[in-house]
């Protein structure tokens, strides 16, 4: 379910076409059956698109969904008290496929040192980290707030809403469930108008910026500090435009279907503190960890708040991938946040300096995220800490590794990236409406033209599909 591939749009249009053909006679003969039909058709469409990714993907999704729903139903039906104890069984059951496919190799071989080859070739089913967390949140919210259990069909629609199933946003029960419960295919231009801007902006982010930037990330240089920082910067921009691009298309598709999804990004690279960064980066995941891990562990009001922050961010790192680099990345951000909280009451940096410090820290941490080769990671960290590797010759060597055309392309891309970041920042800070300037009709035409003129001919999968 790659929004950047033509195949996804062909399958989506084919699915919608079949639904429209089946719906038309029903609307004339049995209009009363339309609400149930629409919800059933939405579910079928989601599962069909997931099955087009692979049968394993849809099978595992259905396994987690059935386990989540019927486990929850059993708890609700049979036990009015002591839910927490049952959650200690149900949540691990929900997490079991995620653990097996994503973490078994890492835990068996790198943590326990068992040297087991069995788990090596396991492919992570697309979207498993996202929909598993969404279903865990659903179970907790339903029990904690004593919400009524919806029908299984509505639960499936909540968990499998196709724009967001494979890479988020990780929606909460109170945001998405009511919308899918009253879902109807409306086929209205008003909905399409509402979604078009998000889709165009998202595809520009992904196809024009992220995919072009990807070609400039080499990752091989371990001795030139400038080259390592360049890789960090380019990767930081790439992953942002890649993931934000996906999220914007998801929001746009949701709007086209009459469903409002949560925005996952609010110009994070304009943040002036690491706390603000995490309120703007992958917002639904941050909120998930805040509500289901950080607050249950005591939140910020206990003496052990720093330990809680560290635990949350290490777990967040592990959520992103099974490897020590991800653990380090999470730990770094946890450390930044602790230092930020301790110092923010004593020191106040000027905004430009705070912005520079925040983004330098965030970009520096990406090294642990993308460099999965431990030897390379260690060598690169040593280089970054060695003053001698910041020489003028190294800076010239960085620039001259690209031919003149590549240099011009890079300057163009960085200019476009800078312009979009400013536009995002002005939308949020000036107008209080995210992505306002990027969704203006004239700007959308420019984005369409730039995407068609500049996007590379190759399709790259979204980075977050791997998570």
């Amino acid at each position: 379910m790659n929004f950047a591939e033509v195949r996804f749009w062909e399958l989506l249009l084919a699915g919608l076409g079949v639904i429209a053909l089946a719906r038309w006679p029903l609307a004339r003969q049995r209009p009363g059956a339309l609400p149930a039909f629409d919800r059933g058709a939405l579910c079928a469409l989601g599962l069909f698109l997931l099955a087009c990714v692979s049968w394993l993907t849809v099978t595992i999704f259905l396994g987690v969904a059935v386990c989540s729903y019927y486990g929850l139903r059993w708890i609700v039906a049979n036990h009015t008290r002591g839910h927490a104890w049952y959650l200690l069984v149900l949540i691990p059951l929900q997490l079991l496929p995620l653990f097996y496919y994503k973490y078994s190799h890492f835990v068996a071989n790198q943590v326990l040192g068992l040297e087991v080859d069995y788990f090596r070739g396991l492919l992570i089913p697309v979207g498993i980290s996202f929909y598993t967390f969404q279903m865990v949140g659903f179970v907790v919210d339903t029990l904690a707030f004593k919400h009524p259990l919806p029908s299984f069909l509505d639960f499936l629609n909540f968990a499998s809403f196709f724009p967001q199933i494979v890479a988020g946003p990780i929606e909460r029960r109170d945001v998405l469930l009511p919308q899918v419960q009253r879902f109807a295919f409306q086929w209205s231009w008003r909905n399409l108008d509402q979604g078009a801007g998000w889709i165009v902006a998202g595809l520009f982010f992904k196809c024009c910026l992220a995919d072009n930037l990807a070609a400039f990330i080499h990752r091989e240089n371990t001795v030139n500090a400038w080259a390592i920082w360049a890789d960090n910067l380019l990767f930081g921009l790439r992953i942002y435009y890649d993931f934000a691009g996906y999220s914007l298309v998801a929001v746009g598709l949701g709007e086209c279907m009459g469903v409002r999804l949560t925005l996952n990004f609010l110009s994070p690279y304009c943040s002036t503190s690491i706390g603000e960064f995490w309120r703007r980066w992958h917002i639904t995941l941050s909120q998930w960890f805040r509500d289901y891990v950080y607050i249950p562990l005591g939140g910020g009001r206990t003496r052990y708040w720093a330990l809680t922050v560290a635990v949350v961010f290490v777990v967040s790192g592990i959520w992103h991938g099974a490897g020590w680099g991800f653990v380090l990345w999470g730990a770094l951000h946890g450390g930044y946040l602790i230092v930020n909280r301790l110092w923010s009451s004593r020191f106040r940096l000027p905004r430009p300096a705070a912005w520079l410090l925040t983004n330098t820290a965030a970009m520096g941490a990406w090294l642990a995220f993308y460099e999965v080769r431990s030897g390379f990671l260690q060598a690169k960290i040593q280089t970054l800490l060695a003053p001698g590797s910041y020489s003028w010759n190294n800076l010239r060597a960085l620039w001259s590794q690209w031919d003149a055309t590549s240099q011009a392309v890079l300057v163009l891309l960085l200019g476009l990236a800078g312009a979009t970041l400013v536009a995002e920042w002005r939308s949020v800070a000036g107008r209080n409406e995210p992505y306002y300037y990027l969704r203006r009709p004239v700007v959308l035409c420019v984005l369409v033209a730039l995407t068609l003129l500049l996007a590379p001919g190759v399709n790259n999968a979204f980075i977050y599909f791997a998570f």
Partner: protein
Amino acid sequence: MPSSTSHFEPAPPGLARMVLGFTLLAWVACAAYTLWLNPSVHFFRHAARVKQNYLAGLDAAHTNKVVVYGGSSSAFAINGQAMWREEGVPAANLGLAADYGALFLTRWAMAGARSGDMLIVALEPGLLTRPLEHSSEAVQISYALGRPGLLRDLDGSSVLPLGSQLLRLRPDARHMVTLLGKLAGRRPLFRYRTQDVRPDGQVTTSVRLPISGPPERGAELSPDARRLLEGLRQWSARHGVRVAYSLPRGYAPEETIQSFRQANAGFLHEIAAYLPVLKDQTLGASSLRDDFADTNWHLTEAAALARSRELARQIKSWQIWTPDELAALSARP
């Protein structure tokens, strides 16, 4: 800071229709530019038509012919007129550009071969050591030639969905930046001119550029390439076309030429499992700098003449490497 579930301002009515309409118009403009104005597509479409005309002439005049194909190394290296005039071998040069990829180039050459002909595969090693996905350039030239069927696999199955093909009829960032740079500097938009294509399809150039070598070494065949070579072998048996491989000649400085040849011998040893390999004693390497024009694969006219004569002799006498010979050469210290 607004909440992540902010209410969005309603979009202007008609926005979706406007965006769709503009996208369609912009795509049509991009496709029109690509098919008719893109300097590279324009040059190679001309070259392809010249080659097809020469091929048709050979078909009319001879019972059987030799078809040599590959990337630009073949386009520059094969002098079909000299092969006929001096060695009596009627040969067509169907070499185009390496950017088009092994699959497209093979389909293109297969379409020009008939029963009784000989097909000489002269694909650059780099084309056979990576996955055989169609490049945007292959899609663009196939549409510019009006032959999108060349994008199919050897067995005729579809490789790239129609929608993906159509979306590749547009430039990309490198192309745009290069084009704008050349326009601003008032430089020629493409290095080669249509006059550089001789009537027999050979491409020549007066451009001379500094060359460093060696080019990409022969390495392990990719699984896709193995499938392609196996498919080509089966196709040749079915259609009565004789197929052989001939390694293109690349520039390698004297100090690296032995290791370059050794790597090439290993590569040819792998090829020999699928196709006969013509016995070129140079093993695809030359250290004569003056034999190369503007890249380390593009022979000058004089060097191409010599290479064409040698190839014609190898074909006439059917000199081929045995797998044992190649294994020994690749293992030599």
